[in-house]
Structures are given as C-alpha cells and as structure tokens.
C-alpha cells in the first residue's frame, strides 16, 4: 500500500492501461495541460497520435468516441466538467447509449468518458452539477462514482477494459484526497458495492463524494454507541442492489445520501427499490439526503446550505433511529 491522492491513482490507472493496450486512444479538451492532473504525462509518454488535445467541441468529441469505438478503438474521452457533458448529450444519449441495442448487439462500444461531477468549490451552477442521475436514466451507459483513491484506480481500470460506454465521474474537488492504494495490479469489477463500515443499527448508503461525510458521521455516532453501516455502491449503473438489500435486512433502517437534486436522484431510485423489495424488513421510513431542486450557488455559505454534509446526514440518521410507529 502507498498513500496517494485520488487524481494520482487515476493517472496511474490511465498510464497502466494505455501501456497494456496499444489500441487505447485518449482525447479531450486540454488533456496535455491536464488541469485536474489525471492525464498528466500521458502525452509525453504515448505521443500525439494516442493522446490528443481537441478543440472545445463536446458535441463532436462525444460522438467521435462512438465512431472510433465502433471502428475498433478503445477510447478514453475527457469531457472535463460534468456540465459540459450536456453539450455532448446527443452523441451520448442518442448514439453511445443506443447504437449497440438498435443494431441488435452487432458492436461493442468500449468508451470511457471522464468528467468531474458535483459541487463544493464555488464553481457555481454551470460547473457544479452532479450528472449521474441523468446518465443513469439513459439506460445504455454505465456510471462509475469512486469514493476513495483505491477505488478510483481499480474502477477506472475496469471502466477502460469494459466493452460498453462508461462514465467515470470523479467527485469535484476531491481529486486531492489521499488514501491507501495497493501497489500491486488490481481491478475492481463494475457492479460491486463495498461495505465501508459495518454496523447493526442503520444502513447508510453514500454515493461518490458522499462517502467521506457519511463515514465521518458514522464515526461520530459510534461514540454514542450508534452503529451505522456505510455502504458505497461505487457504480450506480450497474447497481449492486443485493448488497444494499442484505444490509437493510440486517439493520431494518435506510438513509441514502446522494449529491443530486432530489427529483429523480439515485437516492430516490434506491429508496423505491428497497421499499419494493425489502418492505417487510423496514422498521422505519426510508430517508433521503439530497440537494434541493435548485441550482448550485456560488457563495460558500450558500453552497453549504444546499449540499449534503455531516450535519444533514447525522440529522437524518438520528431521525430514522428515533422514528416510532404512531399509536
């Protein structure tokens, strides 16, 4: 194990995979300058054929990823900010997500779209959306949301090796977060949730950037003898519902934390699934901690007011534990 930042772990994954498979081509906006650090050094290492700076034209590059993949390449397409994915949405929603299905599975589309997603850095409304619910609803793309540096590396390698379009969403502003990363080669399969902390009183599902505040909350409550089990889905498509259901069956209570606007958030989807399939195991209503249905504001005090954090998570956990069936 070595201590590494998430962005370093991602950089290693890209480097190792591009070494491993010469058919990988990586392109996007400013990948040479690498403003986040994930593509740092790749241009130097692999040259201008395989690592390409594109103009700022998301409609084109998101579609080029589909065409190049259909023509036999393995593609990493850097979309920079999640909000820029909207500009490339035709190729993503109408082409990448549908081409395989529409053509009766004639092709594989091995594409990894990279983007940072979510808020927390005063980047304001057009650079702070958490885009995973929109993507998850498309049906034909996988959505990966790592919660730690080790997961980021293992999941990015899996995303690149995957034969389908995958969105790898790095939580905005969390690239510098350190963590222990295995030194040996490893790949984390898509669709396997991780139980980050075991506990018998309540299941706390936390997605992507929410894993950290969820763990902090669990730690704080442990001092009071409250045992919270923290489950990190790691990928929202495919979703490892079994691990979540098994946890809820053990604890009887569920809180889901998702940095997404409330309406049609993944938290809402998970709440529905658990209510449908494990209603008998629940001893309290499911609660969701999400972003209200508003834009992400600029001023730090405003932004903190809408993004889920330790306080709101703790409040939801306590309320769920305190709930009693009305007499």
């Amino acid at each position, binding site marked *: 194990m070595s201590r590494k930042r998430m962005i370093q772990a991602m950089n290693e994954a890209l480097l190792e995979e591009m070494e491993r498979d010469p058919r990988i*081509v990586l*392109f996007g906006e400013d990948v040479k300058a690498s403003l986040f650090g994930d593509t740092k050094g790749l241009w130097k290492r692999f040259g201008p*054929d*395989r690592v*390409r700076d*594109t*103009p700022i*034209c998301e*409609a*084109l*590059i*998101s*579609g*080029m*990823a*589909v*065409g*190049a*993949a*259909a*023509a*036999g*390449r393995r*593609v990493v397409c850097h979309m920079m900010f999640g909000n820029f994915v909207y500009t490339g949405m*035709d*190729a993503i929603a*109408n*082409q990448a997500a549908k*081409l*395989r*299905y*529409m*053509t*009766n*599975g*004639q*092709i*594989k*589309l091995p594409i990894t779209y990279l983007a940072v997603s979510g808020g927390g850095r005063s980047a304001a409304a057009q650079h702070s959306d958490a885009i995973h619910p929109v993507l998850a609803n498309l*049906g*034909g793309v*996988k959505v990966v949301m790592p919660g730690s540096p080790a997961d980021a590396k293992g999941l990015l390698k899996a995303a690149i090796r*995957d*034969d*389908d379009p995958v969105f790898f969403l790095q939580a905005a502003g969390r690239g510098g977060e350190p963590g222990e990363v295995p030194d040996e080669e490893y790949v984390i*399969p*898509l*669709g*396997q949730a991780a139980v980050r902390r075991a506990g018998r009183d309540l299941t706390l599902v936390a997605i992507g950037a929410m894993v950290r505040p969820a763990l902090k909350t669990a730690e704080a409550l442990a001092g009071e003898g409250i045992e919270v089990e923290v489950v990190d889905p790691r990928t929202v498509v*495919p*979703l*490892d*519902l*079994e691990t979540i259901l098994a946890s809820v069956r053990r604890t009887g209570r569920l809180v889901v934390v998702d940095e997404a606007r409330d309406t049609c958030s993944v938290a809402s989807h998970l709440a529905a699934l658990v209510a449908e399939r494990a209603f008998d195991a629940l001893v309290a209503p499911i609660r969701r901690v999400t972003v209200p249905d508003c834009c992400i504001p600029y001023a730090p005090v405003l932004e903190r007011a809408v993004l889920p954090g330790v306080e709101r998570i703790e409040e939801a956990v306590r309320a769920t534990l305190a709930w009693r069936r009305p007499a």
Partner: protein
Amino acid sequence: MAAGGSNLPREELLEMYRRMVLIRRMEEQLARDCAAGKLPGPVHLYVGEEAVAVGVCQHLSERDWITSTHRGHGHFLAKGGDPARMMAEIYGRADGICGGFGGSMHVADFSKGIIGANGIVGGGIALATGAALAAQLDGDGRVAVAFFGDGAANQGVLMEALNLASLWKLPLILVCENNGFSEFSPTATVTSGSIAERARPFGVPFAEIDGNDVVAVWQAANAAVRRAREGQGPSLIEARTYRTRGHVEYEVTFITEPYRDEAEVEAWRARDPIERFARRLREEEPGMGEELARIDREIEATVLEAVRFAEASPEPDPARARGHMFAALARGDEP
C-alpha cells in the same frame, strides 16, 4: 467506353446502374407496403437521390466506414448491405439486419462498414469523424464517409467536424445531399449562403456538384476519397439533388399546408438520375438497352426475394426486448 467523358469501365457503369435500380425498386416496394399498412414504423424514402449514395460508395470497400441519415436505405444498399435483411428489418422481423430492434432509421451492418442510418439529423457526422480517427490510427488507407442532408448542414456539429478534421487531416469525406428540403421547410427558407462553401474557411476542399448525375458524383468522390486515402485530409461534397417523394411516407395524412409546387416536383422528375443515366448509356452504346433490361429483371427478382424473405421471417421474441443493452452483463444488470 466513356459516359459523359468519364472513361469509366463498362462494368463499373453497369454496377452503378444496378445499384441505383436496386435502391429505387426496393423503395418503391416500401412505398406500396407503407400505403398498404404493412410497415410498423415510418419510412423516409431516397427516391430521386440514388446517384449520390451510389456514386460515392462505388469508391469504398467493406473496410471503409459510412454513416448515414434517417433517409438511409440507399446508403445501406449502395455500401453492399443485404436487401433481404434490410427489408426484414423494416418489416420488424427477427431476421432483419438489426433483429427488428432498429427499423428503417437504424439499418446498420458493421461487418460491411455501415455504421448505420441515424434518426438524429446530423447525428452521423461526429461518428464518421471518430471512425476517420480510427482509420488514421490504423494507417491502412481506410476512409470514413458521412452522408448528411442540407438540414444537418445547419447543425453546429458540421462546423466542429470541419474544424477538427482539417486540423488533424482525417480521412473523412463529408457528403451533403442537398435535396431541397429540411424536413418540411424548403432549404432556402432555413439555410443561408452556400453549404459547400462552409468548408472554405477551414481550408477544406469542396465541390458543389449535380447530385442527379451519377458520373459527376463518381468523379467528385473519386478525388475526395483518393485525397483521404493519401493522408491529405477531409473534403466536403455538396450534391444538389431533390427529394421527389415526401419527407416521410404518410405525410399527406398530417401535412396541413402544402410546402411545394407539384410543378417543381415534376421538373425534378424529368431529371431523374436513373433515367438520365440509362438514356446516356443507351446513347453511347446502342446494344445497352438489352443489358439494362436484364439488370432490371434481376433487380425485380431480388426485390421479390427480399419481400418473400421478410414475410417468412418471424416476429422477434419479446423476451429479448430487454437484452443486449450492454456487451458485458454485470451483477444486478439485467434479468
């Protein structure tokens, strides 16, 4: 022999005639099927525009890539797609080229370099640009062709593709089929300036040609494809043609205002690319009439066989409706 000074070999001319007639007869069949209520979904026919697909695809092998449009049957057939499996697809049958999952607007055959028809106007342009990137990296002289209409020429992605393809010298041929209409709007009412000349500021060579003259298309495509294969970069061809049928087959049932004069349609019918080409071939070689009649009979048989194949094919299994979204199934993914 020469047609219009083209010096094209006789076999090549006959092959182009054969392919144009194949597209025409297949689509006339589809028009009848649509009127008879036999087709489950909409069809956008290419009647009158056949010379463009055929003149371009004549230069391509199965290893080259094309992307197409919602009016895509012609490109599919010109690139060597199987008529019977296309017919079965449009009938919504299990033996369709896409198993009945795509229909008319999504006929595709990757084994023949046909990335597919596309229901999104301009949707194929970025895909072809990506395929051209893959071809450039492969370095084996392959090219990618994006067919699109005058309507798609007003989508921003065309500008994006011209810019990047020119910068990267991608082996891309952008073929605009200017058929006079952007769905139900005459091109002039929604398009300013010249489409061909949109290539100029990007340093991309362009040609504006008579799209109803298959030899003129062949010649323009010859130059563009050769340039792409030699690594010199992209080209734009604007082929001026005309959509003699509607935007979509049953449009008379919902169009409230006529959007064109019948006289205009008649004038373009008089310039029908197949009849013009046949006339020229007959003029240049007196014995050609019999040869063309033989091809006509062959095509009639091909179309009949395609219909027979499609009708005999079963409907797809509804149990498969949720399948193959992903290449690799993962846990919790699908049933």
